[in-house]
């Protein structure tokens, strides 16, 4: 986890943590000319509204405070400003605009992880901490998980975030046991195999990315095991306890679909995949467990019976809201 010490200069009662997307410039910014307050755009750096803006400092003391002030008037206020060089003019800018201001001694400590793609950070108790983000996409087969997860990943990449898309089951050995193995698979054995796969996936793929401040998009995670193995009678509490040493997802989206519609959608797909599970009755029970998890606040439900672009729109909205980032602009560029 990348953590950089920063000193508050002006907070004005803003409550921490302040979390959001970070944008960084190693250059001194001359507000008049570099910063367009009407559009909230910082030349060569990006959009500043609702972001944690990290810059070396401001030059051209006369106008700076006025430009920053008008940034706020046009509704483009950043969440926080982090600078390496603090002078009277910079402080005056922050105070006038009511933007929390922090000082970082060593700007490159923020620049380096940013260069490697880390974008989401929280400011809290004297540190700026880059956060990895775990996003799990859950749902029955045919709900559109893979399409949604892959597109979300592409949108994030297009917006400059460090992001990977990955899925479960992870290891080929586990897949083979399920599909072709001779091992007698009781529901509990199935669950243990799935969870073992998940732990090794986490250690080898997920955790290193999170530590580097990346966004990991998981096509299925812990709630799949709880729903699927739960649907064939395995104790739910036990299933949950198997995941004690794995982190809960930061955002978990459940794509809800009627099992029959899901199966009809799947019929068009060529890949014969884990047919083992796919009987309507079991899928209905799995859906009930999913819905129960939604009601407990562990997942956010998105109606996946709609057109894919509507589903995607809702998913982007949820991610934007939870992470305090803006994806719409990058998404429309991708179209």
């Amino acid at each position: 986890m990348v953590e950089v010490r920063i000193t508050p200069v002006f907070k004005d009662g803003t409550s921490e943590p302040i979390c959001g997307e970070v944008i960084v410039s190693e250059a001194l910014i001359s507000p008049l000319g570099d910063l367009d307050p009407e559009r909230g755009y910082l030349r060569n750096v990006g959009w500043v509204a609702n972001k944690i803006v990290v810059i070396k400092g401001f030059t051209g003391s006369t106008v700076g405070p006025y430009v920053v002030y008008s940034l706020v008037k046009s509704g483009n206020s950043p969440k926080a400003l982090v600078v390496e060089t603090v002078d009277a003019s910079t402080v005056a800018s922050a105070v006038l605009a009511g933007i929390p201001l922090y000082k970082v001694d060593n700007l490159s400590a923020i620049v380096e992880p940013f260069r490697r793609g880390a974008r989401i950070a929280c400011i809290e108790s004297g540190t700026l901490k880059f956060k990895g983000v775990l996003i799990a996409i859950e749902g029955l087969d045919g709900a559109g998980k893979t399409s949604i997860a892959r597109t979300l990943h592409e949108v994030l990449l297009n917006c400059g975030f460090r992001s990977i898309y990955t899925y479960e089951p992870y290891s080929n050995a586990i897949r083979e046991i399920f599909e072709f193995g001779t091992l007698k698979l009781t529901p509990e054995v199935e669950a243990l195999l799935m969870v073992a796969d998940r732990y090794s996936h986490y250690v080898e793929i997920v955790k290193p990315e999170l530590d580097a401040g990346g966004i990991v998009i998981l096509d299925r995670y812990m709630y799949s095991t709880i729903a699927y193995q739960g649907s064939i009678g395995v104790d739910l509490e036990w299933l949950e306890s198997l995941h004690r040493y794995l982190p809960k997802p930061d955002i978990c989206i459940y794509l809800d679909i009627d099992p029959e519609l899901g199966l009809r959608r799947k019929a068009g797909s060529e890949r014969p995949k884990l047919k083992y599970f796919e009987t309507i009755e079991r899928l209905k029970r799995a859906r009930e467990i999913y819905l129960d998890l939604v009601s407990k606040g562990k997942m956010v439900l998105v109606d996946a019976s709609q057109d894919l672009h509507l589903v995607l729109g809702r998913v982007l909205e949820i991610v934007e809201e939870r992470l305090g980032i803006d994806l719409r602009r990058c998404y429309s560029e991708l179209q």
Partner: protein
Amino acid sequence: MYLTRVEERMLLGDYGEAVAKAMKVIVKVGEALGAERLIEVTHAHVSGISYFNIGDPGLEFIEDLARLGARFSIFTTANPYAVLVDYSGRSLASEIVGKQLRIASALRTMGSRAFTCTPYYVRTPKPGEHLAWAESSAVLYANSVIGAMTNREPGVLSLLAGIAGRTYLGDAHRGLPEEVEYIIEIEKPSDPSEAGVYGLIAGRVASAGIALVRGLTSMAEPYVKEFLAAYAIYSPTHIAILEGVTPGYSRVSLARAERIQIGRSELEEFYGNLDSCESPLYLIGCPHLSLEELEQVISAVDSVGRGELWVTVGDPMPQTGWLKRGVKVISGGCAVTTKLDILGVDCVVTDSAKALIYIPRLAGVKAYLTRRSEILRRVTKRG
């Protein structure tokens, strides 16, 4: 930060929203810079009022403040604004002129007494007086020549200090520094423009600390003024200790100072070939002239025969007419912070080292340096 009871009430809004806003910014800036308390000031001088410099954001901010009922609680002056007169029959777009006049009008509503970069001609502070001045050339003049005390305030802070009557207690308000890091020795300048060039070179070589300057003792005021205005471009300090000029200069320790000599041979490269500027705008008055200097200039020009001569002075400046013998005497205007390219100016010939540096950056045209006598010789109609 320690605040008096009155200051606390000001901060809490007992004296109105504008005062509270001003106090909030000043206190936070002071805290961030490590000041333990505020200091009452008697004169604020506001910079950053040219529409070309602060644009719509600055206009909005100043008008918002005036609308909020902000009024200067102490004697307050402001920098000059963009030149609004025509150049060879061409003038700025009426939208720009209108917005510039709105900035000036909002400042007048708040109580600004003058528009000038030489506020010490409007109201000369006493030695030891605490000020909140922003214009760098005026800050250096106040601290280094008069012996008054002012931080080098950012424009907006001087504006707010005018409202609150206070600023943060920075180093400048603690009196002369105990020691200097440089001793700069210059050869005798033979003209104020040369003093300005010495200022440029000195400010650049001594940009990392406070310097004592030898060679300006008993020089006439325009020399000192030009030196300091140019010095402040590259030096971020609030003062230059001028031997024989700065009150109390002899108390400053020179024990650990690095000695730097600047000779006449270094001046010449700053004086360009005036022939490269075919139809120049001649400019005198950066910083603004004193009344005495203005009279000297006017009396030296029989009538302007070639080119156009602008002489910039403060507003108000008594006894100045609009056009004297063809000289455009511009009160309250600053050519440097005016986009001269959109007025159709090709190039400027000036006697100011400060203008030489800033005109290409801010006014958007080339500038050439020459001596004042040469400008007057060139513009005067012969026979």
